[in-house]
């Protein structure tokens, strides 16, 4: 059985969906009816709207109808992939030059057997 808090959480999800334009007319009507009687949900809707306005403003489009999604252009993505690969290869090459391949970094002679006369 759903309690009042659970019901409230569901209404908050409905508010998010409505602001994203994902609700049907019937669902929007039910939400409007609820908001008329629930000041808490009405306040939450106003807060969400303010957040979205701030996001749209920071994206450079304060008059947008929905929050603009960040986009990465294909050229930029390719450039960064190439930079990351080149950095990894250069780092590996430098590490191999500095410390060699797998195994102990100790000098070879230190790991070899020795005979000491007493």
């Amino acid at each position: 059985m759903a309690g009042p808090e659970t019901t409230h959480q569901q209404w908050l999800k409905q508010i998010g969906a409505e602001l994203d334009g994902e609700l049907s007319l019937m669902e929007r009507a039910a939400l409007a009816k609820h908001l008329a009687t629930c000041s808490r949900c009405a306040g939450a809707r106003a807060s969400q709207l303010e957040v979205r306005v701030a996001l749209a403003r920071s994206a450079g489009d304060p008059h947008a109808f929905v929050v603009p999604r960040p986009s990465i252009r294909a050229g930029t993505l390719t450039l960064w992939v190439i930079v990351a690969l080149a950095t990894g290869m250069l780092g590996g090459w430098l590490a191999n030059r500095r410390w060699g391949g797998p195994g102990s970094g100790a000098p070879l002679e230190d790991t070899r057997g020795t005979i000491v006369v007493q």
Partner: protein
Amino acid sequence: MGLSSFSSLLLALASFQGPGTRLTYRVRVIEPASVEPRVLASGAVSGPLDNEMRLTLRTDSAEVEALFHLTPFGDTVSLGAEFYTRRRVGRSRRGLPLWEEDTYRRLVRLAWSDTARIYPFGQNRREGSAFVELILERRFAGGEGRSAERFDLVDSTRDLRVEAVVRPRRARVILNLVRGDTVSGPRPIDLVLDEPPRVVQLVLRGRATTLLVSVARPSEARSPRDRALALDADVLCLRVAPPPAADAPQPFGTVCGRLNNVARQLPLPTGDTLAATFAWPGAR
């Protein structure tokens, strides 16, 4: 070469070949501890002066094999060792272990009464790494006896081994001629290494076949490990040739094998097959 160094060399050779001198490598594998060192294993390898000793130590991450040999010089002795070491350095991308292999030599001069300490993993390795204590002894025996080895492993969780390595100077070879399901009578012959070839006559179905046979060491070890550790020390090659009078300029061939009583076969141009069985010669 100066006269004094030449005479010392002769003296060394004389003492090296002295009859009846028996050499003993006395070995203790010791793990150092803060209170009292712990003996993990002890043993001895004895035999003629040209006897060698092979020491093997294995851990999860390293394998050390060493072949010890010595050259006496009067009251001192040169102890040489050929080391073959494998160290585990990690895993491959497919999860298989990666090992690095290393071959090197060590040579020290010591008096007969001295003790040599062998640090198989290096002297500067972490504390608690086992070392080997080696004492060389020589005594005069009535005759040149066979090599002997004794090894007591106190800590059975360790993988340690000491073996005598003997390079044969003679070999007993048993020859048979085989054709189909007919075999000639066995013809045993004692051969000395690098001696002039000997004439052997084998009779099969009433027909005599004369051969010239001699034994020699194999020319080249199969791998660096075999060469360093003398793993093929008991391998000999039998050279078979036609008698000088025969009109066959080419030797019939060479067959190599260990002195382990296993027959090796060599096809002859006559259509017969020569079966040669190598064995250690009887004690003298």
